[in-house]
């Protein structure tokens, strides 16, 4: 797998989004900056029925922060991932694999493409009540017109964290 990943430089977290959208292309709904009990989930992927939710936290360097947030997302999403630039993700796979397994947090390496290098699994932290809260939030988003990634980038740069439905296939 390592050989298939060529080097890619990322200067902003939002640059990781496009490969992630391709990775989760079979999920019909992609929502960015989803508000959840005072925090925001970076990316949430779901089918139209919203039965299964996949939460992804992206970071360029501070993987510990992303890991914690991903662990918190497990309260409401069935699968929770941390997505990082591939050199960092691969290093963590070598050095911190046990930690990710212990907490059932998945790991995604992002380069020009994104790939799951450690699958997320369900654990006992999932709460149906929290899942329903999150589901209701993204239900409201379903009626919104999907936007391009640039909209999220603008929102992040302006520090106005507004929930955005993204086009599931990058242009």
């Amino acid at each position: 797998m390592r050989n298939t990943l060529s080097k890619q430089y990322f200067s902003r977290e939002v640059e990781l989004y496009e490969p992630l959208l391709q990775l989760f292309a079979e999920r019909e709904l992609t929502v960015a900056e989803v508000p959840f009990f005072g925090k925001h989930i970076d990316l949430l992927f779901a089918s139209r029925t919203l039965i299964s939710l996949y939460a992804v936290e992206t970071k360029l360097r501070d993987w510990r922060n992303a890991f914690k947030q991903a662990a918190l997302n497990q309260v409401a999403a069935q699968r929770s991932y941390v997505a990082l630039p591939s050199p960092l993700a691969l290093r963590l796979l070598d050095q911190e694999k046990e930690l990710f397994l212990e907490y059932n947090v998945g790991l995604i390496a992002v380069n020009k493409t994104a790939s799951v290098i450690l699958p997320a699994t369900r654990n006992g932290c999932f709460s149906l009540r929290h899942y329903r809260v999150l589901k209701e939030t993204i239900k409201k988003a379903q009626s919104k017109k999907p936007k391009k990634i640039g909209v999220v980038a603008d929102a992040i740069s302006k520090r106005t964290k507004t929930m955005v439905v993204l086009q599931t296939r990058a242009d």
Partner: protein
Amino acid sequence: MPFPSEPKPWSFYRLGPTKEKELFKRHRDTYDGVVIPAHIASYYSKFCSEFIGTLGKPYFIDPLTFIFSNDSSQIRRFVKDKNTGRTKRDRFGNKKKGDVKRSYLKLVENEYCEKIKEVVEENRSLNPNDFADSKIMEQFVNKVVQFQLTKLAAIPDKYKKYEKYAKMSGRDMSVSGNPPMCLVAPYFPITTLNARGWYPTNIKLIQATKATSGTIPTFAVVLADTTTLAQHSKQIAEDYSKAGTDGYLLWPDGFSSDQDTAALRIIFDSVTEFSQTGKPVILMYGDAFSLSLHYAGLAGFACGICYGEKKLSTQDVDIEGGIPPRYYIRRLKKKVQIETEARRIQIDQYPDLACTCEICQRKPDPVTLDDAESREHFMLTRAQELIELRNGLTRQQYAGILRDAYEEHKNDLLLQPIGHLRNWADILGAGNNE
């Protein structure tokens, strides 16, 4: 009402807009005094005077005069969408502002002087030149002082009948006169000590307040960022002392105790400088780091009940929904959000983080606490922390407690960030061996 009778450090809770009256009453033994923001004292004057009168605790009113020197939009309300409750935005995505907030309007129209009213009507910021005329300054100080002296000093007549019962039970409840423990001189932010800033005006305001305060101590607010404090603490302490202040209310603007040790050191040293004048120093907004500042000579600190432990004076807070309930972990000196963090961390799995307060004994799993219970837990736990210091915990012992907690949990990712524990311990450890 005199200063708190308890040994230092004193804990003051700031009365907020949320429903806290019952918490203040139920746990009145867990804190030493109350801070009432001027706009709340003005807008809810009947409630506040009843509340303060029956509480029987030292209090003071924060006159909040700095707000008029900020951008004039700061005292204007955010325009909300009636259906969603969210703030409306203009076509550029900026939040929409409406009229002057009702609470400030009452303060401006009924309590403070004509100059303030004029500035608000002109939709501009107050500046030092507005006080160039000494008569205007005198009028302003008189109004602000009178407001503090009289607004909450007497409780309504209907409560007079309870005075004798209060006396019989050994409680102090004065219906005829319940003045604040101190008067707070009108204040504005210090960014420079030169004549163009607010500094010379602040000094004159302290002098004028002192001249009218009678027997009640005058306190001066030192509202300055860490850069200014680092350069000028000693000078400010001396100048304000000469102006006649009887104590300092220190507000390190925008300071957060999770900053690096350089910023922590500035605050620690500033508290030391101010306290060396022999006058009490009270932090206007303080979190658990205030407990460490006790070893720098801090006399007390104020905060909301489990919120409002830091503040940037220019921050225009837009409340969209309530503050999610948070649980204070005593050993880690931090709060975690109950709905997400506490649920995921499963605090009850960490024996050393277990709390023995009456709330947690009844409900050991923090996830089951509601908002009121989490605040009660905060009050009870903070009281225990204060008792620990009052009982003579040494600086080195306290540093050791902080360092041990850090070492034990530094690798537990779900409990992060806890680097503040190491930094606070470093600050304490770097000093003498008191």
